[in-house]
Structures are given as structure tokens and as C-alpha cells.
């Protein structure tokens, strides 16, 4: 395949990386005053890159990179989440005098990395993409560098992320050493005639490294600290786009490269899924900080998405991808609501107690927040129920119904703390009112995501089902 044809397949990444480099120069010469312009230009770039996804299909660079229905599905989600994270940032940072022109550029670079991750069909492309995404994320976590919590979040994320990268790289080296190739297809061929001890160790290390990136238990411990310390728009970004990208990467490597060893990784995925749903549900109960609570909620949700992968069937993978699609809408909506939590002086408040009686002071916000909470809990009339149903359906289809039953039980535990927030908002004595919302765009985004996860979301099932099934079929 010629170089030009390969480059044409990577068009979304080319658009984003070229655009990010040009905007970097604008940022250097224009200063922080140009940050609004750069934000809008970045959102436009993400939109163009998203539009360019449509027709890309094929293998580029001699099997290092693959554009297919699966990568396009994941990339569309990633770009959308990245664009929302850029849009909600300026007002948050400007209130603290910390808006810098580099913020949208870092998100763009991170998006390029995530695009590489979901398109990787080679262990080294995977690693380069993952590092590109992570390095930008470390900087974003400590974006408010004068704020000690933000700096702490960045440092913690960096140290633990570097450890996870090391574990992943060690697994990659073992896989390469024992299979003689870094290409997913080659690894699958080598695993086809029985799995050796060396290959098994490689598989376990790769799984552990990736479990860290999706913050699945037992590699979740960084999540609450980083989510709490990072500035709220950055937390919204962490909880959405990189989660989708890492989950898609895990799915692709599990199915594409380790397909013949399904019985080996299935145990790991089942354990991670069970542990994540249980710990995410139980540990969230005692939280008083809303961002920490949402961090545990994201651990919990990643566990449910992993149930789909644990099934190891096209239906299961399609369920996982549907889950991630609905999950980012719910989680971005929740963080948008958290962004509205500002006291009369305009400072951000994060404790759950301050939500008391929100239904009387800000009924619209309370209703939206309640929709997101009910939806995250998976309570039927809301759209959050549907992907949960899909993953359990996939489990039951292959006879893993005990696992499905445990999963449903943990979702009931999880429902407790989601409902507690709703109770705080609707039945407690009002706390001092929040400052009125000043941004029509944020209100619009909240309303849009609330409508998307409301029962109206069921209208999207045929489309979502077809797209996620096409994505899953591309892997099998």
C-alpha cells in the first residue's frame, strides 16, 4: 500500500495534529488572550476530524494502523467528549484567572493519541498512542499549577501512570519475546497453537496496564484523588474521552490479538468487572465530595462495561460500546451539573451537602441532575438502563447468568448513593442558593444531555444498536 493511501486513512489524526501545531504557534504569539479563539478553532478541528471519519476503512502503514467501523465509532465518541471538555473550560478557568491558551491544544493532542489507541493494530502503535494521550493528560491534571490539589493530582497521576506504562511495556516485551511479533494478527496466530507460560505472563501484564488506564479495580486507586484534585472541566474530560479510548483499546487487543486465548483473559476481565462494580458501589457510599463520588461512579460503570467484554462475543462487545456511548453522555452531563455548583461569591463548592434543597432554589438544575443520577443507577424509564440490559443480556446468552445476577445485585448497591443525592436535592432543607448560571451554552449542553438520557433516548436505539454492532463485527 502506498504512502499516500496510508496517510489518507489517518486523515483524522493528520487534521488534529497539524491543527494543534498551528494553534500552538498562535498560542505562543497571541498569548492567553487568544484562548477563546483557540478554543473555538479546536472545537472546529474536532468537528472536521469527526466528519472525515465517515469513509475511512482499511489498514495503513503495513499493519500498524487500522481504520474500521470500530475505530470510527470510538473516535466519534472521543472527539465529541473532547469538544465538550473544551467548550466548558473557559468560564471555569477565567473565574480563577487561570485560562491559558494551551488547554484546548493539550486536549487536541490527547485526542490524537486516543485516535491512535483505538486504531492501533500493533503493540507499538498502541504504546505510542497511549503515551501521547497520557502525557497530555498529566499536564491537564495539574493545569491550575498554583493550586496545591491540582498539582498533587497531576503528580499522583504521573507517577502511577508511569508505573502502569512500565507494566504494560513489560507485558508487550514479553509478548514480543515469546511470539516474535508486535502485530495483533501475528500475536493471535502465535497464541493459536496453545498459550505458553511466557505468553500468559505477557497477557497478564498487558491487561494490568490497560486496567489501570480504564481505572478498573484493583488498579483504580488513583482515580478518586485525581478526579477530586483536577480542575472540574479536566475531570469531565478524564471521565469521558480517555475512558472510551482505553476501553476500545482493551476490547481490540483482547479480541484481535488475544482472541485464541479468550479463556485466559476472560477470567481477568470477569474479576476486574466484578471487583469494579462492587467496590465502585460500596466505596462511594461514604463520600461527601461530589467529584470523588463521581469518580467511584465511573469505576462502577467501567465494571459494567467490562461485563460486556467478559462475554467475549460480538453481542457482548457491541453492548460494551453502546455502554460507553451512553456512559459519556451521563457522565459529561453530571460534571456539567457539578460545574454549576458555585456559591454566591462565585467559588466552586464540591460537597454533596450543599446540594440540599436544590429543587427549590434551582428546579431545572435539580431535575437534570436527578435524571443523570437515575440514569447512572440504571433505573428503567431512563436511557441508562438500556446498555446495562444489553451487557447482562450478552452474559445470559452465553450462560454466564450467575455473573449477570451478581452484576444486577451490585447495581442495586450502587443505586443507593445515586438516590441519596436525589433525596438530598429534593427532600432536605435548602442550603444557601448557588450563584445563578451565567452561561447559556452550559445550560444548553445540560439540557441536551438530559434529553439524550431521558426516555426519549430510546428513539436512538436502532441507530446506536446498528453502529455498535457494525463496530463489534469489524473485530470478529
Amino acid at each position, binding site marked *: 500500500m502506498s504512502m499516500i493511501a496510508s496517510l489518507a486513512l489517518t486523515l483524522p489524526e493528520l487534521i488534529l495534529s497539524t491543527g494543534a*501545531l498551528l494553534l*500552538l504557534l498562535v*498560542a*505562543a*504569539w497571541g498569548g492567553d488572550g487568544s484562548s477563546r479563539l483557540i478554543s473555538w478553532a479546536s472545537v472546529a478541528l474536532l468537528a472536521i476530524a469527526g466528519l472525515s471519519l465517515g469513509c475511512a476503512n482499511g489498514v495503513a502503514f503495513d499493519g500498524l494502523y487500522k481504520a474500521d467501523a470500530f475505530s470510527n465509532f470510538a473516535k466519534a465518541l472521543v472527539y465529541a467528549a473532547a469538544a465538550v471538555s473544551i467548550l466548558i473550560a473557559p468560564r471555569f478557568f477565567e473565574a480563577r484567572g487561570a485560562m491559558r491558551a494551551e488547554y484546548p491544544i493539550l486536549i487536541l493532542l490527547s485526542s490524537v493519541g486516543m485516535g491512535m489507541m483505538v486504531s492501533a493494530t500493533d503493540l507499538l502503535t498502541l504504546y505510542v498512542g497511549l503515551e501521547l494521550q497520557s502525557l497530555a493528560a498529566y499536564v491537564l491534571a495539574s493545569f491550575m499549577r498554583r493550586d496545591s490539589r491540582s498539582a498533587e493530582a497531576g503528580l499522583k497521576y504521573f507517577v502511577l501512570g508511569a508505573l502502569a506504562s512500565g507494566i504494560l511495556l513489560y507485558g508487550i516485551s514479553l509478548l514480543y519475546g515469546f511470539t516474535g511479533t508486535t502485530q495483533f494478527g501475528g500475536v493471535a496466530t502465535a497464541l493459536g497453537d496453545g498459550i505458553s507460560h511466557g505468553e500468559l505472563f505477557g497477557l497478564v501484564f498487558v491487561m494490568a496496564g490497560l486496567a489501570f488506564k480504564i481505572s478498573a479495580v484493583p488498579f483504580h486507586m488513583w482515580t478518586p484523588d485525581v478526579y477530586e484534585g483536577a480542575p472540574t472541566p479536566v475531570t469531565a474530560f478524564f471521565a469521558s474521552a480517555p475512558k472510551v479510548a482505553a476501553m476500545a483499546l482493551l476490547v481490540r487487543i483482547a479480541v484481535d490479538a488475544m482472541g485464541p486465548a479468550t479463556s485466559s483473559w476472560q477470567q481477568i476481565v470477569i474479576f476486574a468487572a466484578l471487583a469494579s462494580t462492587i467496590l465502585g458501589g460500596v466505596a462511594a457510599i461514604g463520600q461527601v465530595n461530589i467529584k470523588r463520588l463521581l469518580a467511584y461512579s465511573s469505576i462502577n460503570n467501567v465494571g459494567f462495561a467490562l461485563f460486556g467484554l467478559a462475554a467475549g462475543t460480538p453481542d457482548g462487545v457491541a453492548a460494551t460500546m453502546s455502554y460507553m456511548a451512553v456512559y459519556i453522555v451521563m457522565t459529561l452531563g453530571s460534571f456539567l451539573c457539578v460545574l454549576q455548583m458555585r456559591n454566591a461569591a462565585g467559588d466552586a463548592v464540591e460537597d454533596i451537602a450543599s446540594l440540599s434543597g436544590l429543587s427549590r432554589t434551582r428546579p431545572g438544575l435539580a431535575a437534570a441532575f436527578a435524571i443523570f443520577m437515575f440514569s447512572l443507577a440504571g433505573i428503567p424509564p431512563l436511557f441508562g438502563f438500556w446498555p446495562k440490559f444489553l451487557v447482562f443480556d450478552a452474559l445470559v446468552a452465553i450462560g454466564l447468568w450467575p455473573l449477570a445476577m451478581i452484576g444486577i445485585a451490585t447495581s442495586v448497591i450502587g443505586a443507593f448513593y445515586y438516590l441519596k443525592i436525589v433525596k438530598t436535592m429534593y427532600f432536605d432543607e435548602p442550603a444557601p442558593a448557588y450563584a445563578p448560571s451565567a452561561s447559556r451554552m452550559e445550560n444548553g449542553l445540560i439540557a441536551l444531555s438530559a434529553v439524550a438520557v431521558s426516555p426519549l433516548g430510546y428513539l436512538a436505539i436502532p441507530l446506536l444498536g446498528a453502529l455498535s454492532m457494525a463496530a463489534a463485527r469489524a473485530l470478529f
Partner: protein
Amino acid sequence: MREKPLVDLSQYLPILLFLGVALAISGAFVVLPMIVNRLTGTAKPNPDKLAEYECGFPAFEDSRAQFDVRFYLVAILFIVFDLEAAFLYPWAVSLGGIGLTGWASMMLFLVELGIGFAYAWKKGALDWE
């Protein structure tokens, strides 16, 4: 019949010889001056002579000393361009074999680094004060 050894160790003989020679010579470098020193009568130790030599720094001090953060900035910029040079060398040697694609890839890499450098320069990363 004797079993075939797992690894043919005889191919590592040159390394063993090399290690032996290295050990002998480095031992001689340490011991010889001491002997010569004693025999010629120049051994007059004083506290300064007996102190450890550690590249001009005091050998023992609190390891939590603070560095100016600007050193790190310079060090990181150095690493970036050091690596660039490390990539350029094998590229230049094999340029005949990798053709126009290889040339264009390296030029793109250099342009990207150049943009990063321009950014760092404009942001004042290179000014000491």
C-alpha cells in the same frame, strides 16, 4: 552419550578474557601508584588529601537539597535535542536505503521539533532571568 549443553558457553570466551584483562589492568592502576608512592617517600597524608573526591561537590550533605527549577527546563530541552541528534545519525547513514519517504518523515519530525522550539523560545523558556 553426553547430553548437549543448553548453551554453548565456549562462544563467550572472548568476553571472559576481556573481563580478566580489564580486572588486571584496573587493579594495577589502583595498586601501582600506592606502591610507587610508598617507595619514593612522597606519602604524606593530610585530611584534605584523604577526603573523598566527588567532582567538586561536598561528598556528604542532605540529599534533599533544592535545585532551581530552571535547571530542569534546560535539562528537558537538552534531552529533546539530544534525542533528535540520536535519531538523525542512523537516518543519515541509511538515507540511501529509505528513500524519499524516509527523508520526508525526518523533515516533518524536524519541523515539529522546530515548532516546539519556537514555542519554548517565545514563551521565554530559554531566558535565565
